[in-house]
């Protein structure tokens, strides 16, 4: 039975697209058939993060409007044969997505894949609501920062009211993914702690992704961070999150760099 997962946050720039790519690639590595769908019509970026920007011919809008077949718009990943991308349109806007058209495409994707991962646009308007509407599971991406936590709270409210599941009296399975976390700053009281955020949002924690230069490096290279360098701290954190999504119980830890004594003493200065 296929699962539809939405990666959402309300606030922009917290790591939705990075997380979509990393979780999608991580799930695909376990042998599941995965499609990552870009819902950010007009501001697409998932194609760039996946390194497939030059292979886009047809997009989600073309399929929704019936101008192209789904199979024509799907882009197979060159590194993982179980991973596929459905890009958004760059030239149209979100009004070009009809609810019926999206429902039809999601139904077709459910038949072809084990996981359908929808990368939501920022905001709480139509685009974000369409991205979450068909979700069985939601990953709420949050930074340890007050405006992000507030927006996540708002999105959780929408997940509980404006989704197909909510309308049927059912629930969307919600998970918190804390990104750009700096354990040292949280420890010094300079940053909201994990417990604070969990207490405020009260949804279960899927993972803690440490703030890391490896994320930018992966996006520069056009590879999900889980593929660009599987051993780096954020990749390990995403891999753990994937295992939790698949039902494993793992102790929660924030992966760090394995540093030698020299790096521990002087590493911080090289920023």
């Amino acid at each position, binding site marked *: 039975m296929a699962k539809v997962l939405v990666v959402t946050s309300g606030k922009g720039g917290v790591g939705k697209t990075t997380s979509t790519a990393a979780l999608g690639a991580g799930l695909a590595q376990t042998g599941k058939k995965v499609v990552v769908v870009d819902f950010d019509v007009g501001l697409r970026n998932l194609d760039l993060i996946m390194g497939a920007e030059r292979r886009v011919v047809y997009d989600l809008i073309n399929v929704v409007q019936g101008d192209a077949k789904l199979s024509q718009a799907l882009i197979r990943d060159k590194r993982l044969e179980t991973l596929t991308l459905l890009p958004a349109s760059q030239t149209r806007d979100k009004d070009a997505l009809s609810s019926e058209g999206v429902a039809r495409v999601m139904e077709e994707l459910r038949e072809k894949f084990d996981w359908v991962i929808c990368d939501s646009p920022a905001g709480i308007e139509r685009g974000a609501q369409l991205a979450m509407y068909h979700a069985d599971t939601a990953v709420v991406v949050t930074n340890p*920062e*007050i405006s992000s*936590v*507030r927006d996540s*709270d*708002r999105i959780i*409210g929408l997940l509980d009211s404006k989704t197909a599941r909510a309308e049927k009296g059912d629930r969307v399975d919600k998970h918190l993914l804390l990104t750009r976390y700096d354990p040292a700053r*949280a420890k*010094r*009281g*300079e*940053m*909201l*702690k994990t417990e*604070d955020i969990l207490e*405020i949002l009260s949804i279960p924690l899927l993972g803690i992704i440490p703030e890391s230069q490896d994320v930018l490096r992966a996006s520069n290279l056009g590879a999900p961070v889980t593929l660009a360098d599987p051993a780096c701290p954020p990749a390990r954190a995403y891999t753990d999150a994937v295992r939790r999504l698949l039902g494993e119980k793992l102790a929660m830890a924030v992966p760090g760099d394995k540093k030698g004594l020299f790096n521990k003493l002087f590493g911080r200065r090289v920023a």
Partner: protein
Amino acid sequence: MSLLNLFYRRPTTSAPVARERLQILLAHERGAGSSGNHSQLVAVLQEEILAVIARHMQIDRDKVVVKLDRAEDVSMLEIDIEMPPQAGEMLPQIRAQA
């Protein structure tokens, strides 16, 4: 940087402040969202009260304040109308009718 800064370092624990601000804010916002959109109700009330008053006297829009406070066991609807100094004077058409 002066030498004093070395001794009087700014406290860096801003996270507890963030936590408290968030808790207060969200308690407020969730109340507004979950039980039938109160902010909308307050806005409608304000408009209708203004319309009724405007039939009888001239009044500034911001002199009518409608607030809705909800606590665990008591809810309070507070309507605060500040009368203009010349409130006794009715609009001409009303005076004509009288």
